[in-house]
């Protein structure tokens, strides 16, 4: 049996697929438009259905629930019945309410909240925040569930046993529990943000009076985070050991599905533990900053007069002043300079600088070319290409084209040439072609 290593599937869909999904959704032109009354109406329906175990609402019930919600949100609003009709219509159009009786116009309908509505309601009712108690319960449940799965994995022999006893629980029960922890973590993050805003609001509302409340809030949150981080770090290592065992067993049994699920859960638990550490670090920094602020700013300026005076100082164009500060020049580090060499004494050349011009015979390039062409013809060259090849043998490639023209002209002068009507092109070297001529030996020069 060969155990293959698990390779996690890509987290995101391929780009093209994503484009198609977005295009398809955009084609349906989805839009959501909910006001505060609509949202409260949905929440009231949800709470009502849970409290009374209702699976659906009649039109009358919908209107009654709307009237209750409206009385709280807009107590002075009139024409409640008419507004209820509009609200129900809006929710129907946006698929928050689904008609479930299938009777059409035959009788009044029955309606239930759609998945979309329940999602919205749950978002607003979300009060899942990670606390020490909730984390403890969740982690304990997780430990028990994973231990059971490990026992099944140890004894499972058939694929069906792996699917029912390992993959199923890992995918559903345990993944739900881990997701529960993550959801509460997000809740706590949101609470932290609110908390930071709360400190600001407290100070803005009652500068010095808010000091104790701020200190108290800081201490509470610090203690909570510290505890959560401790519990997460301790218990997550135990959970990871258990999941590692499950993964090893799955690898040994060649159960790639079980291996993949176990691996994914390990990643999730790692992420949760990392969350605790990063939040603790960030909080520590924030905690110190706020403590210093409370001590150095709020306590030292209980009436907040300093801010006002500083603002006036900045706004006024009175006496201008500037802070003084030390400004030692950086140390000068001398660079190493080689000692200068002994310079020879300056002398004047004794010989005269200007040279007398000398007369030299000038070489006629055409004469040289004529002699070369004649030599080639004398040596037996009887075509223009052979003469050109011979004469341009020592000529630089860049000048061969020009020289070829001169050679053709010279050959015509010093010998008798004959050309066909259709003159063939003949290569001379790699970079030159000429129209072929036949030539004779050089003409005798008339004396």
């Amino acid at each position, binding site marked *: 049996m060969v155990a293959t290593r698990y390779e996690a599937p890509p987290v995101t869909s391929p780009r093209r697929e994503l484009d198609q999904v977005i295009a398809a959704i955009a084609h349906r032109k989805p839009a959501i438009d909910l006001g505060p009354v609509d949202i409260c109406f949905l929440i009231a329906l949800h709470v009502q259905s849970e409290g009374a175990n209702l699976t659906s609402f009649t039109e009358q019930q919908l209107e009654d629930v709307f009237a209750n919600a409206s009385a709280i949100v807009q107590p002075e609003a009139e024409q409640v019945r008419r507004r209820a009709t509009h609200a129900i219509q809006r929710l129907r159009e946006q698929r928050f309410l689904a008609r479930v009786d299938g009777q059409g116009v035959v009788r009044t309908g029955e309606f239930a909240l759609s998945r979309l509505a329940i999602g919205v309601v749950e978002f607003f009712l979300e009060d899942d925040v990670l606390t020490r108690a909730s984390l403890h319960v969740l982690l304990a449940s997780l430990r028990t569930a994973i231990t059971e799965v490990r026992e099944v994995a140890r004894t499972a022999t058939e694929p069906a046993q792996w699917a029912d006893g390992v993959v199923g629980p890992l995918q559903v029960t345990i993944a739900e529990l881990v997701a529960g922890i993550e959801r509460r973590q997000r809740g706590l993050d949101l609470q932290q943000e609110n908390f930071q805003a709360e400190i600001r609001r407290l100070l803005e509302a009652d500068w010095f009076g808010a000091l104790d409340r701020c200190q108290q809030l800081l201490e509470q949150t610090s203690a909570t985070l510290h505890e959560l981080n401790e519990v997460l770090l301790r218990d997550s290592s135990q959970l990871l050991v258990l999941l590692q065992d499950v993964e090893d067993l799955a690898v040994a049994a060649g159960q790639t599905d079980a291996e993949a699920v176990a691996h994914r859960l390990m990643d999730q638990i790692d992420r949760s533990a990392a969350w605790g550490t990063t939040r603790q670090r960030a909080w520590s*920094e924030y905690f110190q900053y706020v403590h210093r602020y409370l001590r150095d700013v709020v306590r030292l300026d209980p009436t907040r007069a300093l*801010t006002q005076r500083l603002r006036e100082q900045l706004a006024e164009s009175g006496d201008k002043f500037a802070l*003084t500060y030390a400004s030692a020049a950086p140390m000068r580090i001398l660079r190493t300079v080689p000692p200068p060499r002994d310079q020879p004494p300056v002398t004047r050349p004794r010989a005269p600088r200007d040279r007398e011009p000398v007369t030299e015979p000038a070489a006629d390039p055409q004469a040289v070319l004529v002699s070369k062409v004649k030599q080639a013809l004398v040596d037996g060259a009887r075509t223009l290409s052979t003469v050109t090849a011979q004469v341009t043998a020592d000529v630089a490639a860049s000048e061969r084209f020009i020289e070829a023209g001169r050679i053709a002209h010279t050959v015509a002068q010093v010998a008798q040439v004959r050309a066909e009507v259709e003159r063939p092109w003949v290569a001379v070297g790699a970079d030159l072609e000429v129209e072929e001529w036949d030539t004779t030996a050089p003409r005798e020069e008339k004396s």
Partner: protein
Amino acid sequence: MTPRTFTELQEVVLDPSFPDLDLALRRGRHVDREDFAWYTLLTDAQDLLEAFYRRYGCELVHKADGYYYLLPTGEKLSRRQLAVGDMLVGQALALMYLDPSTIERGGRATTEDVVAQLAVVMGAEALVRAFHTKKKKYDERVAQKAVRTKVADGIRRLAALGFVDVGDESLKLRPALLRFAEPVRAAGQPAAALAKLVADGEIAMVTEDAEPAEADVDAETESDAGEESTDDDSDLEAELRADDAERAASDAADASEDDEDT
């Protein structure tokens, strides 16, 4: 963490953090708790270091707000004054440091926040006059860009002195910013407080004529600290004009393409 006890200056000088701390202080750096190793060394050896720097004609100042800095009182160590523009930026940052809204962001702000703070407190007109030009007529865009540039330059210079930390996208405000609030710390007359600070050598008064960037006490010059530079302004104007020309050319090209299409 228990404080170390230094009995002799030699022990302080032999501390691994001392050389960097000493250089930083002499260059005007303000040291607070964020500079953990330096701050600890200064706290643990404060008595010895105060005596040490007094021999150089300097005071090692420790403020109750939780920061140290070196203040030259003699002629042995050169000293400078902040530019007028940098003073305005510093005061705006100090205001932000005191504002509870900064708490929500853990003491962080952006350069835009500083410009906005200055504009709110001083007014846009006064801001342009302080940072750009005193002329009555000016190009609004050029002036605004010049203000933004000079505020950013000021922040950079203040960061070098330990008043703020400049990160990738935000500034971290530090306790030393409260030095800008010193003249208005006490409830009494600001003029009396100013006079006392001048006498202590903490601040220097700036006259309208002597407003150039950083007044330098012992005549050293620093080319990058210059302000009121007309070259900068003309560069800015040229840059904006070039932008306009480029935009116009691009618009014309688009228009001709449209014509061709039609």
